[in-house]
C-alpha cells in the first residue's frame, strides 16, 4: 500500500460517486459535474496505478494532461449546448415536456406538404 | 387405292376443323351453312373408295399417332360420313339465323371428332377425338338455349365428363400394361391383366355413357330431343355409335372368352332393349320416343357385344354383323329423326306418301323384310344360334332378339302416333326435302350398295328374306296387334 495507490483508490471512489451522480441526477449541469467527477477519478486511477514503483511515470501524466484537455473541450461544448438548450426550451433536464407528445403531430398536420 | 394418300386422310379429318375459318368474318358466315354438307365428303370418299387396311403414321402427333381403317372402322366411317352429310344438307334448310355461326362451329368440331375417332388407331388420337366430339356435342345439345336444353346439356356434360374420366383411367391402365400407345395392343393386355375387372368396368362404363347403356343413359332421352333436328340425327345415328366402337376396339374380344362379362352384358343389353322400349312408348314427343328407341337398339347391340365377349371364337364374325347393324341403324335412325322436322304436304296423297316414307325406315328398324333391318337381323340371327355359344345367357338370345324386334316395332308405332299428333302441315325448304330424302333413300336403297364388312356371311339376301320372312314378320305383327289394342284402349278411355 503505497501513497500513490491511495490516489488510485481515491480515484476509484470518485468514479463510483461520479457514476451514481451521473445516472441519478437529472439537471444537466449537475450531470456534467458528475461526469467531470468520474473523469477526475479515472485520471487519478491512471496516475496512481502507474506510480507504484516509487518514481513517477511521466507517460500517464502526459496522458492525463491530454485527457484533461479533451474533458475540458467536451465539458465546454456540453455547457454551450446546455445553455442554448435552456435558452430555447427553458428546460434544464432531458425529460421530454409533457405537452411535447401531442405537439409535433398537430404541427405537422398544419404544415404538411408545404414546400420548403 | 387411288384416293388414299396422307394429305387426303388428313384432309378428311381436318376439313371440318379448317372450315372454322369461315366463322372468323361476318361476311363468310352465310356461306358457312352451305359448306356443312361438304365437310364429311372427303371422309365419305375415303370410306367408300378406299379398301380397308390402310394406315398412316403420324409420329409427331401427341404421343405418336397412327391412323388407319380396318373393316369395322370402314363401316363406321361410311355411316358417320354419310349421316353427317345428310344432316348437313338438312341443316341448311333447317337452320334459322339464331346463333348460326356458333352452331356451324360446333357442328364442324363434333364432326371432326366423330370422324377422327373412327380412323384413330392409337390411343391418344382416339381419346382426343372422342373428347372433342363429346365436348363439342354439348354445343349442339344446348344450341336452342332453352331451360330444358340447358338442363339436358348439364346432364349430358356431367355424365360425359365422368365417362371421359372412366375411359381415361381405363385406357391409361390398359396402355400401361400393353406398354404401347396403340389401340390394337390393348385387348391382349387387358386379357392378361391382373385387374382386368377394373379396366373392363371402367371402359365399359366410360363408353357405355355414350352408348346409352342402361343406368348410364339418362342424358340420352334428355339431350336428343332438345337438340336441333339435324343434330339429333347425328347424335343418335352416328355419335352414339362411337361408344360402341370404343368397346369394340378396346375390350379383349377374340383374345379370351369371358362368359361372366358376356352374361352381364347380355342382361344389360336385354334390359336396355326392352326397358328402353317400355319407357319409350310412354313418351309424348316423337324425338323422345326415337331417343328411347336408340337406347333400345343399342341394347340389342350390347347384347351382341356380350355374346362376342363371352366367346372369343365368334368375335370376328360378330364384329362384322355389328358393323352392318350399325350401318343400318344409323341410317334409319337418322332418317327418322330428320322426319320429325318435316311438315306434311297439303295434298292427301302426298301426306300418305310421306307417312309411308317416314314409316319405312322405322319398319326397317323392326326388321321388315327387304329392308336393311332385315338384312342385319338375319345376319345376326345366323350367328347368334344358342347352341354354338357356351355361356349361360346364350339360350335366351333368340328370344331376346325377337322380343327386341317386338319392342322396336312398338316404338315405331308409338313414334308414328305421336308424330302424327304434332306434325304440322306446310311447306318445307328444299334442302330439308333433300336431306330427308337422302336419308330415307340411303336407309332404304343406298344401304345395299354401301361397302359391307367383309366378314358378313355371304348370302343371297333376297331369297333368304323370302325364306325367313315369317320369322322376321311375326314380331312386327305381334307388336302391331299390341299397338292396336293399346290404341283402342286409349281411345275408349
Amino acid at each position, binding site marked *: 500500500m503505497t501513497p500513490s495507490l491511495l490516489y488510485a483508490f481515491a480515484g476509484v471512489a470518485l*468514479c463510483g460517486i461520479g457514476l451514481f451522480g451521473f445516472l441519478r441526477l437529472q439537471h444537466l449541469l449537475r450531470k456534467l459535474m458528475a461526469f467531470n467527477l468520474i473523469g477526475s477519478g479515472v485520471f487519478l486511477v491512471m496516475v496512481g496505478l502507474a506510480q507504484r514503483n516509487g518514481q513517477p511515470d511521466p507517460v500517464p501524466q502526459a496522458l492525463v494532461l491530454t485527457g484533461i484537455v479533451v474533458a475540458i473541450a467536451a465539458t465546454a461544448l456540453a455547457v454551450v449546448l446546455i*445553455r442554448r438548450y435552456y435558452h*430555447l426550451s427553458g428546460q434544464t433536464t432531458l425529460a421530454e415536456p409533457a405537452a411535447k407528445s401531442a405537439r409535433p403531430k398537430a404541427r405537422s398536420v398544419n404544415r404538411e406538404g408545404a414546400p420548403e | 387405292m387411288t384416293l388414299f394418300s396422307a394429305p387426303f386422310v388428313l384432309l378428311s379429318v381436318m376439313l371440318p376443323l379448317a372450315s372454322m375459318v369461315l366463322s372468323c368474318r361476318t361476311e363468310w358466315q352465310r356461306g358457312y351453312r352451305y359448306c356443312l354438307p361438304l365437310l364429311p365428303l372427303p371422309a365419305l370418299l375415303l370410306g367408300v373408295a378406299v379398301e380397308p387396311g390402310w394406315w398412316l403414321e403420324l409420329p409427331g402427333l401427341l404421343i405418336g399417332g397412327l391412323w388407319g381403317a380396318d373393316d369395322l372402322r370402314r363401316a363406321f366411317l361410311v355411316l358417320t360420313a354419310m349421316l353427317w352429310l345428310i344432316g348437313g344438307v338438312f341443316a341448311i334448310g333447317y337452320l334459322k339465323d339464331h346463333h348460326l355461326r356458333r352452331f356451324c362451329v360446333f357442328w364442324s368440331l363434333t364432326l371432326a371428332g366423330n370422324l377422327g375417332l373412327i380412323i384413330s388407331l392409337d390411343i391418344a388420337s382416339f381419346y382426343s377425338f372422342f373428347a372433342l366430339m363429346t365436348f363439342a356435342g354439348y354445343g349442339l345439345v344446348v344450341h336452342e338455349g332453352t331451360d330444358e336444353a340447358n338442363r339436358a346439356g348439364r346432364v349430358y356434360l356431367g355424365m360425359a365428363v365422368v365417362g371421359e374420366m372412366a375411359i381415361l383411367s381405363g385406357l391409361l391402365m390398359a396402355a400401361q400394361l400393353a406398354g404401347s400407345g396403340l389401340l390394337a395392343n390393348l385387348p391382349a393386355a387387358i386379357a392378361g391383366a391382373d385387374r382386368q375387372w377394373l379396366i373392363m368396368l371402367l371402359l365399359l362404363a366410360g363408353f357405355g355413357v355414350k352408348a346409352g347403356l342402361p343406368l348410364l343413359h339418362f342424358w340420352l332421352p334428355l339431350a336428343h330431343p332438345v337438340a336441333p333436328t339435324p343434330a339429333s340425327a347425328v347424335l343418335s345415328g352416328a355419335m352414339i355409335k362411337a361408344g360402341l366402337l370404343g368397346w369394340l376396339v378396346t375390350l379383349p374380344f377374340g383374345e379370351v372368352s369371358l362368359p361372366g362379362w358376356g352374361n352381364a352384358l347380355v342382361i344389360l343389353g336385354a334390359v336396355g332393349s326392352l326397358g328402353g322400349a317400355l319407357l319409350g312408348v310412354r313418351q309424348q314427343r316423337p324425338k323422345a320416343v326415337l331417343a328411347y328407341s336408340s337406347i333400345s337398339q343399342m341394347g340389342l347391340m350390347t347384347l351382341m357385344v356380350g355374346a362376342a365377349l363371352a366367346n372369343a371364337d365368334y368375335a370376328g364374325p360378330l364384329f362384322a354383323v355389328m358393323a352392318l347393324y350399325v350401318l343400318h341403324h344409323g341410317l334409319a335412325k337418322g332418317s327418322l329423326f330428320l322426319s320429325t322436322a318435316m311438315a306434311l304436304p297439303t295434298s292427301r296423297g302426298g301426306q300418305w306418301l310421306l307417312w309411308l316414307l317416314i314409316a319405312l325406315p322405322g319398319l326397317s328398324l323392326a326388321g321388315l323384310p327387304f329392308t336393311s333391318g332385315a338384312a342385319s337381323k338375319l345376319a345376326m340371327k345366323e350367328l347368334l344360334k344358342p347352341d354354338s355359344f357356351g355361356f349361360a345367357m346364350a339360350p335366351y338370345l333368340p328370344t331376346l332378339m325377337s322380343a327386341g324386334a317386338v319392342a322396336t316395332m312398338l316404338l315405331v308405332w308409338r313414334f308414328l302416333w305421336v308424330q302424327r299428333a304434332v306434325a304440322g302441315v306446310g311447306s318445307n325448304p328444299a334442302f330439308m326435302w333433300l336431306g330427308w330424302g337422302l336419308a330415307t333413300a340411303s336407309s332404304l336403297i343406298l344401304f345395299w350398295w354401301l361397302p359391307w364388312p367383309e366378314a358378313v356371311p355371304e348370302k343371297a339376301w333376297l331369297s333368304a328374306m323370302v325364306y325367313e320372312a315369317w320369322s322376321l314378320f311375326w314380331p312386327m305383327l305381334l307388336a302391331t296387334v299390341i299397338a292396336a289394342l293399346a290404341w283402342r284402349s286409349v281411345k275408349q278411355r
Partner: protein
Amino acid sequence: MSRFLGITVLAAVCLVFAGALMITVWQIAGTQAPVDLPGLLADNLEASGVEHPITAVLLNFRSYDTLLEIGVLVIAGIAGISMANTASLEDPELRTSDSLLYALQRWFVPLMLVLAGYLLWAGSDRPGGAFQAGAVLAASGVMMRLGGIPMEFLRPGVLLRLGLALGFSVFLLVAVVSAMAGDAFLAYPDAFTKPLILIIETVLTFSIAMVLLALFVSAPVNGAEEPEEGESG
C-alpha cells in the same frame, strides 16, 4: 417507494462497480508491469529535444495524441461559435460594472500574461507547458470580458477562426512538412526538434486560449432557428 427502490438499486450498482474496480486495482497493484516504459522514456529523452519527460511525451513521443487533442479543442470551439449570435457580442447580462472586478482586472491581467509566458517557457524542463499557459491566458481573457472590455476579435469572424485554427494549423504543417521530408508524419528533423517544439508550444498556447475564450463568450442567444427536416415552415 419506487423512487427509493430506484435509488437503492442505483447505489448498489455503483457500489458493485466501485468494488470491482477496487479489487481490480488492488490486484493490478500487486503485480509488476512487464514493460518498463519510464525507463525506455528516460533512455530516449535525449533525442526528444526537451528535457522534461512529460513535455517530451506530449510533443514528441506521442505528439499525434496531442495533435488530435487540439483538434478536439478546435471542434469544441467550432461547435461553440456555431451557436453564437453573429450580430453582436453585447450581452448586457454578462457585463458587470463591479468596480472591484475592474480594479482586480487591471492588476491581474498583466500578471497573468506574464505567468502564462513563464509556464510556457518552463514546459521544456519542468512542469508547465502550452495547455497550462493557454488556460491562464484564457482566464485573463475571461476576466477582461467580465470586466466589459470589448475584445472585438472574439466576434465570430475570420479573425476568431484564424485564431482558433492557428495553433492547430502550425502543428499540422510541421507534421506534414516532416513527412514531406521523407520521414514519418510528425517526425521532426533532428536539428530542428527543439525550436519546432517551441514554436508549436507557443502557437498552441495562443490557440488554446482562444478556444477556451471563444467557448466562454459564445452566448447562445441566436434568434434564428433551423427547423427539423420535414417540419419546415
